[in-house]
């Protein structure tokens, strides 16, 4: 049985505009799936719909079944808040696109990491403090004491994204949803964070749903791809196959622009 089973997922606005249409995909236990498409294609909304957290004014239909070990099978679409809450964080955790805005500006970083640890693992006091230090250490941040006491604006963008990653991983989710976690970072930091992400996923045998518009980034961390265009899946398959033999013109153009970009980079760096 798959960990995440999305069938015929649609998201519509109150005024009837379809933002995601009839989307289906599955993520296996420990699998790594990429969701790729240009800006506005509905990637983030899909991620939010999976968590049952669409913004007000948007409605999901279809089926999203999360079957996390120890948490039972749950239909996420239309489920009650009280049913969803225990699954959020433990069944699936999310890392967002923009690390600065995804952290509370007025709360010290240590407390933000402690929050899910306390709720999902029931840790308190000295034990909690040790777990926070371990979580910071796990995402390879330097000076854990300073980082824990810092406010988000007092650490760098790459460090913030590591903190966000630590928060998402704190409750040890079965599925990690990463919504363009490296888009806001520069290329070298991006590579570091991606490498770390890959390691952590493999270490805990976590499944990954990786959302991005950047084919080069996605191809490094996923085994399978779903290509989204205007809220519809236009193509899906193994990442390597899609990269070498894209069938759809849209996918081909994504591959080509990624290649042109890479060639340009190579020319500059050479």
């Amino acid at each position, binding site marked *: 049985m798959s960990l995440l089973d999305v069938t015929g997922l649609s998201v519509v606005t109150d005024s009837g505009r379809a933002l995601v249409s009839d989307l289906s995909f599955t993520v296996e236990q420990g699998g790594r799936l990429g969701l790729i498409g240009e800006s506005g294609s509905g990637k983030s909304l899909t991620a939010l719909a999976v968590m049952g957290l669409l913004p007000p004014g948007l409605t999901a239909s279809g089926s999203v079944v999360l079957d996390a070990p120890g948490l039972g099978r749950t239909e996420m679409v239309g489920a009650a808040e009280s049913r969803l809450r225990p699954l*959020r964080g433990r069944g699936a955790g999310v890392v967002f696109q923009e690390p600065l805005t995804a952290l509370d500006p*007025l709360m010290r970083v240590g407390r933000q990491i402690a929050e899910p640890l306390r709720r999902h693992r029931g840790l308190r006091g000295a034990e909690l403090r040790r777990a926070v230090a371990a979580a910071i250490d796990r995402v390879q941040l330097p000076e854990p004491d300073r980082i824990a006491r810092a406010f988000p604006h007092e650490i760098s963008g790459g460090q913030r994204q590591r903190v966000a990653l630590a928060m998402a991983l704190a409750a040890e989710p079965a599925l990690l949803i990463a919504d363009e976690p490296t888009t806001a970072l520069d290329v070298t930091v991006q590579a570091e964070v991606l490498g770390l992400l890959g390691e952590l996923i493999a270490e805990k045998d976590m499944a990954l749903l990786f959302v991005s518009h950047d084919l080069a980034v996605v191809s490094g961390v996923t085994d399978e791809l779903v290509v989204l265009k205007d809220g519809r899946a236009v193509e899906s398959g193994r990442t390597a196959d899609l990269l070498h033999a894209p069938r759809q013109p849209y996918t081909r153009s994504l591959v080509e622009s990624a290649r042109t970009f890479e060639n340009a980079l190579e020319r500059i760096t050479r």
Partner: protein
Amino acid sequence: MTVKRTTRAAPRRRSVILIAGCVPAGLIVALALVSFFWLPYPLDDTSGGRLSPPGASHLLGTDKLGRDLLSQVMIGARIALESGAGAVAIGGVLGVATGLAAGFANRWVDDTFSALLDVLIAFPTLLLAMLVVAAQSASLGSAIVAIGLAMTAVVARLTRILVKRVLAQDYITAARTSGTSWPRVITGHVLPNIWPTLVVNLALQFGLAVLAEASLSFLGLGAPPPNASWGRMLQEAQATVSTAPYGAVAPGVLLVALVVGVNLIADGLRDTLDPTRRRSS
């Protein structure tokens, strides 16, 4: 290490503004406190002679009925602080509560509510105050209630906007994706992120309430005699301002000092309460 340094260096700068505000405000609080235990002369003592200039027996002189101006100014300090605090208490509690409710309400309730607020805010404070006073009677209590009610609309609108803005932030979604419950999102993220702005605004509203009470008293709609509000002192001194200006100077200066002091405190608080400003300042 750098964190320590920035947080240690910044408070020194901020405290300058805070202290600059606390000095005049503190002096006026002291005047008000002393008035509870001691006054140079009782308020109805007219033994000083009419319109005597400042001197040894009457430090600030006397008014046209021969009453001591220092005693009146001290009682006035009490009234000014009471009206500021009372109105902020009413406007703060009602405004924040309704604003929070509206911020979380569904769209229909929220739209109705903000339309209502827009009408209320367009309604001049003084006009509202006159209606309240007309419905009851001219007293300090009804003046405070009127000012507090007018303030409620302003505070509610601000609270609603702040709540909306915070709720739209990614860190709220992030907290919810990690399974945080609504009550905890509110106490842990929403309130901490809106209260610095609210506190600063309530401090500013305090100054406005003091001015509003003075205006109401000036119009004869505040505390009735012999209670000496600064506004009423100004009004009484108006007739003789060209021959004996002392009567207007003391309450005028104190009124300005209190409002300026409170505004400076608000500014100081703004920098103190926001860690992201702490660093940049």
